[in-house]
């Protein structure tokens, strides 16, 4: 049996890639698990955007009754309207979840009663009602539609959920696979003394680190392709603007989360401990960075905290270039912040690293 002669870089990359692909739990957590969330979220919210919002109209609501014909059509596409005279009963129905919103007119103001139980639906309801109110105002005053741009954006953001969750879940998936991979490799190779063994082979540290990074970055790009592919094929995801700028952003993000994994690997003593530590860092970060749901309704202090997390910047950057239609420049600041995190965490890990585990 004679095979081709690989260079050290290729041989190492191949060895690491094979090790990854044969580790079922790594593959599961890197690709299948986040994809399950995508299918789940895409499915749930996909249905929701199609289904109408149950609206109870209490008493006479001039805004609705006086809508021009085209607007009326749009309104009826969005809302399933039932009429009622009993405000308390209508509000109770909303509380029970039987209806999504109850509206009434109080002194020329449109008052909407809704719950925050389903945040996405609540946001959709609010945005849609506001759009109709603004539309009615504009129509009534004859003024140019000053706020129309804002209304459009509001609708885009909340109505097309798949475009929100795809970048967010992709960010989480990459954060997991990059950090788990780096943490497990550092710990596993240290414990088996493979790191020592490689130190005594005539290959440079650059070659070893380069091989590890190239495998993780390749896996991240495959994750991206799968996510975008599934999103586009099954849930109507459409990419906008300079979505290609998400590729370099993703590469820097991968490096950043590898450094998170290095840190986890440096401060722990076992492979399991390292992966648990990485998970402990990444999972809460995913929640706080809006990977699963928007943070628009979160209190200010949480927003501030969120802005200090690298995943938030990765997610925001990807949202900007992939679905918010922004130019490639929007990826630059997130890339800079992620790169800074990567450098700082790598330096800290290098200081904390010990050859011996005891």
């Amino acid at each position: 049996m004679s095979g081709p002669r690989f260079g050290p870089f290729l041989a190492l990359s191949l060895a690491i890639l094979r090790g990854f692909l044969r580790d079922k739990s790594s593959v599961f957590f890197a690709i299948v698990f986040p994809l399950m969330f995508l299918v789940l979220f895409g499915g749930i919210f996909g249905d929701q955007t199609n289904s109408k919002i149950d609206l109870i109209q209490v008493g006479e609501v001039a805004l609705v009754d006086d809508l021009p014909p085209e607007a009326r059509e749009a309104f009826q596409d969005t809302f399933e309207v039932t009429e009622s005279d009993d405000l308390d009963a209508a509000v109770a129905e909303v509380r029970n979840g039987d209806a999504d919103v109850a509206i009434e007119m109080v002194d020329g103001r449109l008052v909407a009663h809704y719950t925050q139980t389903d945040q996405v639906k609540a946001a959709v309801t609010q945005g849609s009602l506001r759009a109709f109110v603004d539309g009615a105002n504009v129509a009534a005053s004859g003024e140019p539609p000053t706020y129309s741009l804002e209304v459009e954006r509001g609708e885009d953001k909340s109505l097309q959920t798949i475009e929100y969750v795809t970048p967010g879940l992709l960010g989480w998936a990459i954060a997991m696979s990059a950090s788990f991979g780096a943490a497990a490799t550092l710990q596993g190779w240290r414990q088996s003394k493979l790191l020592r063994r490689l130190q005594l082979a005539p290959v440079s540290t650059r070659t070893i680190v380069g091989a590890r990074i190239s495998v993780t970055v390749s896996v991240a790009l495959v994750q991206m392709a799968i996510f975008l592919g599934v999103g586009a094929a099954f849930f109507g995801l459409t990419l906008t603007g300079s979505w290609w700028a998400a590729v370099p952003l993703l590469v820097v993000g991968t490096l950043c989360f590898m450094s998170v994994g290095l840190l986890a690997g440096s401060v722990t003593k076992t492979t399991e401990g390292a992966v648990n530590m990485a998970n402990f860092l990444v999972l809460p970060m995913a929640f706080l960075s809006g990977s699963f749901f928007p943070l628009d309704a979160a209190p200010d202090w949480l927003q501030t905290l969120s802005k200090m997390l690298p995943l938030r910047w990765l997610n925001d950057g990807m949202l900007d270039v992939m679905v918010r239609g922004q130019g490639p420049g929007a990826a630059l600041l997130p890339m800079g912040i992620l790169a800074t995190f990567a450098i700082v965490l790598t330096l800290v890990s290098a200081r904390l690293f010990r050859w011996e585990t005891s």
Partner: protein
Amino acid sequence: MGAIEVSDLAIAYGELKAVDGVSFEVAEGEFFGILGPNGAGKTTTLEMIEGLRKPDSGRIRVLGESPWPRRPGLLPRIGVQLQASSFFERLTAREQIHTFAALYAVHSTEADAWLERVGLVDKADTRVEDLSGGQAQRLSIACALVHDPEVVFLDEPTASLDPQARRNLWDLLSGLNDSGRTVVLTTHYMDEAEVLCDRVAIMDQGRVLRLDSPAALIRGLDAPTRITVSPGQLDADEARTLPGVDDADLRADGLVLTTRNPAAVLTRLAEREQLDGVRVQTGTLEDVFLELTGREYRA
């Protein structure tokens, strides 16, 4: 010039002097053993010679070069097997050794030849995690030798193997220095050092206590020979009167005669037709070790 020269090597971890003034020289083509209990400083000594650790003081030359700081030119000339099974996870035996071959820019046909030499051809497609202890050690040794190094370091290659696997590995190890290769091996098995090594350094608590060939070490010990006679054949008091017998001690498995003139004692036993089931034990490295450290052997 020796393949390895070590003088006044010392390293301390805090208060603990792990290696404390070790000096020795290993000749080219020699099979050199470092023998000692766990914690004697064997592995630390080896790691300093390999260039993995910087000694606090002392001088090391491997093939005429200092191994610290890391010297890329020296690395292809040495082979190492570390104490743990240092493998890439989830690769097969063949993929493993091919990867190491590639790291040393060696053609994969060489790697396959080594797989055959260590008897792992039928395990070539088995993942390293599924190899037995002995098979993993053989693969590990093959990975250390795939680039045909001039000096090879083996750190406790037979630790935690069952007796059969150990002896099986000895056959492989004993041929390693045939082609002029220098072998340095650490072990805590006395019999292993006795069988394999040209010379042995006995280490304990960071120091080399004695360094010589196993035969010379045992000779120098001047240990008495113990002759065990089957129970019931000979009375202890009577035995003490036999010429050449220094002492007689009745134990469960028979009467143990201690002597420095085994020939005379055995001749007399033969005359009395009491040789049935007789066992003769001469000194072993274990005796040397116990003599030197003066306490229980701690394996």
